[in-house]
């Protein structure tokens, strides 16, 4: 199904596609995969900084901050194209913190960060989760004491994924110990590379990827790094999370195509896999689910382009996609049989070892960025007006 773009925007997308066809190197793909598609690695930075100055990373931003003032639709289309090509796709800066700065930041802050985010020069790490604050983000405890011209920050974060490659921390801290929990949270921007007192330690996942725990020990953060109003951070987090939840899905379209191509060439017990009725039904089902995801995803852009802010719809897209990824990964393992367990680099590995990796990786997709249960709460309460417990 075609993406609804105007002619000019379609030309930009075509140009992006041509660029990707020419510029993607094996080294980039290897690093990108190794970093589970987050931005910030060396190869990724080289690649992105070649095209981001054209405005392609943030096309819907105002021109003065490095955008092209196009529709969100184009931005969604390009992001999905990036996912399809398996280049870095998770930009905590350009696509999560950036839109929040655009909306809530001071002019000075916008000028300081947005142009550099748009060109890919800098990357952020999202600093929300803590040992005692996962789904219940309001419970976060990292303390930032107000010292007038600066905040003094102490405490611990967990699962801060980009922290080892990023330049800045988009840090949620507690600035008010009294009153309702959600009214005591603020957002600070912290220079991760040049600030004393910060320790970043790796946490390795079952997919072999890295996330981090981050410790703050009497860290001084200048007051001008406060985003928006003090104690209003929860609102900004919620907005940024809505942006985070608009998940591109091209990666899984590509994977589906690879599985499809495999079944057309491989045989089992002398018969082509593509003729197995169970496999035909399953793949047709997944093709249909991908079509549904296409509409869920681009409808979000449509809502934004029409001045609406998606809320329950973003949750719906996130859930539908992430649950689909798990179904698709399982189907691939079923189709491949024992070959599916072979890892990248192993003798006999099929589809470059992706199947077993995705089978491990997709487990987290229904948990991070707000778990599937939390998304269903949002759909029921925001979407259908059902009462809170």
């Amino acid at each position, binding site marked *: *199904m*075609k993406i*609804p773009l105007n002619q000019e925007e379609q030309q930009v997308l075509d140009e992006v596609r041509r660029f990707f066809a020419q510029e993607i190197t094996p080294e980039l793909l290897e690093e990108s995969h190794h970093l589970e598609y987050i931005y910030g690695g060396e190869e990724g930075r080289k690649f992105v900084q070649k095209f981001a100055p054209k405005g392609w990373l943030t096309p819907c931003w105002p021109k003065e901050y490095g955008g092209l003032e196009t529709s969100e639709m184009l931005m969604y289309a390009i992001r999905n194209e990036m996912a399809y090509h398996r280049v870095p796709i998770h930009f905590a800066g350009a696509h999560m913190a950036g839109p929040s700065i655009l909306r809530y930041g001071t002019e000075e802050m916008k000028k300081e960060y947005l142009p550099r985010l748009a060109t890919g020069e800098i990357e952020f790490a999202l600093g929300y989760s803590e040992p005692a604050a996962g789904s219940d983000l309001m419970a976060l405890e990292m303390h930032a004491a107000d010292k007038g011209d600066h905040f003094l920050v102490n405490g611990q974060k967990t699962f801060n994924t980009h922290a080892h490659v990023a330049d800045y921390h988009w840090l949620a801290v507690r600035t008010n110990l009294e009153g309702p929990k959600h009214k005591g949270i603020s957002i600070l921007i912290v220079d991760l590379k040049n600030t004393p007192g910060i320790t970043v330690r790796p946490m390795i996942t079952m997919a072999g990827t890295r996330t981090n725990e981050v410790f703050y020990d009497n860290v001084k953060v200048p007051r001008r790094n406060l985003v928006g109003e003090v104690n209003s951070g929860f609102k900004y987090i919620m907005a940024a999370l809505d942006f985070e939840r608009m998940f591109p899905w091209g990666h899984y379209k590509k994977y589906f195509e690879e599985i*499809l191509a495999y*079944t*057309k060439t491989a045989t089992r017990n002398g018969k082509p896999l*593509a*003729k197995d*009725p169970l*496999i*035909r*039904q399953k*793949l*047709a*089902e997944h*093709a*249909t*689910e991908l*079509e*549904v995801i296409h*509409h*869920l995803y*681009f*409808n979000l852009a*449509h809502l934004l382009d*029409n001045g609406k802010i998606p809320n*329950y*719809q973003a949750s*719906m897209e996130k*859930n*539908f996609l992430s649950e689909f990824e798990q179904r698709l990964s399982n189907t691939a393992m079923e189709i491949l049989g024992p070959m599916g367990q072979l890892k990248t680099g192993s003798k006999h590995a099929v589809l470059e070892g992706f199947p077993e990796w995705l089978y491990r990786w997709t487990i987290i997709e229904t948990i991070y960025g707000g778990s599937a*249960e939390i*998304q*269903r*709460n*949002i*759909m*029921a*309460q925001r*979407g*259908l*007006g*059902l*009462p*809170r*417990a």
Partner: protein
Amino acid sequence: MSYELGVEQKMLKESARDFFSKEMNSALIRELEEDEKGYSPKIWKKMAKIGWMGLNVPEEYDGAAATFADLAAILEEMGHAGYAGPFFSTVVLGSSLLLKGGSEAQKEALLPKLAQGNHLLTLAYAGQAEPIAAADLPLQATAKEDGYVLNGVSLFVPFAHVADTIICAARIGSSAEEVSLFLVPKGTAGVAVQELQTMAADKQCEVVFDQVRLSRENLLGTAGSGWPVLQAVLREAAVAKCAEMVGGARKVLKLTVDYAKKREQFGRPIGSFQAIQHHCADMLTYLDTSALITHATCVQLAAGIPCDKQVSMCKSWVSEANRRLVGLGHQVMGGFGFMEEADLQIYYRRAKAAEQAYGDVARHREIVAAELGL
């Protein structure tokens, strides 16, 4: 393509919703399920007066020349309201067959009457299963000097018992080029119509053809041209069913959420229980995804873009999603939803009938698989 309905579709939809909220109600739905005709001629006349029968008929035959997407907007409201009657058979099947396959003279003779609501049509093509190839068509035609003789039993023919003309697909041999469509007027000798007793009480009929003699004038269009016309109409019918299902699903979600907000257990509304909320969230997902894919497919059909794969994705997804949605509705409504007096049970039965109409989930997935090159 935009994700928004066009201005005209919005207006059509609103007026249809208005119309049905005045004309249809739970008691009437039940009454019509028991009724011999299975529809209300009074409502039919009013619908004709608004011009809905001629919606997809070109202006030269007194129609409104609307698009398929406009038609779908009304069908969605019919599904929502639980409308029952020969609209689908006459308009989605009948007039589309005439338009795609009929000769100029046939169009001139039938379409104006149809557009005014004075001529009911239907289509007989299936036997005990949805025909996949021409050889599966249950009706056999034998060519004679002065015309044809038809034999066979067609099943699940909607509203055949009241149709003024049954259009049937019959085959002379077993290849697609040997399929013709025939116009069979009411009262033709050798045609026997009998209503089947179905789960959705939706007036699907058996039509028996016993040595039915038809002249060449009864051919819709030309001999041997029937298969592609039939396929094109069945594709539209599949998507039209999806539009009905989307309407039904919307209604079921509303019934369910309203109930979950009112019904109290353990001293609070059941809608505040998370298990219930998650069922409702899943229902919302089934509804929104069905509406999105149906809208996109309607737009493609309306634009005349070839879209076989898209149609089959749409029909398989919406059928499955709608069935799951109604099932969850039952779970939320507990014992009350199981009662005859709860409207939910009407939608439960109709969801299954819609799922099976014009190709079930497995059938459409098989089409998608073939389109994927498997």
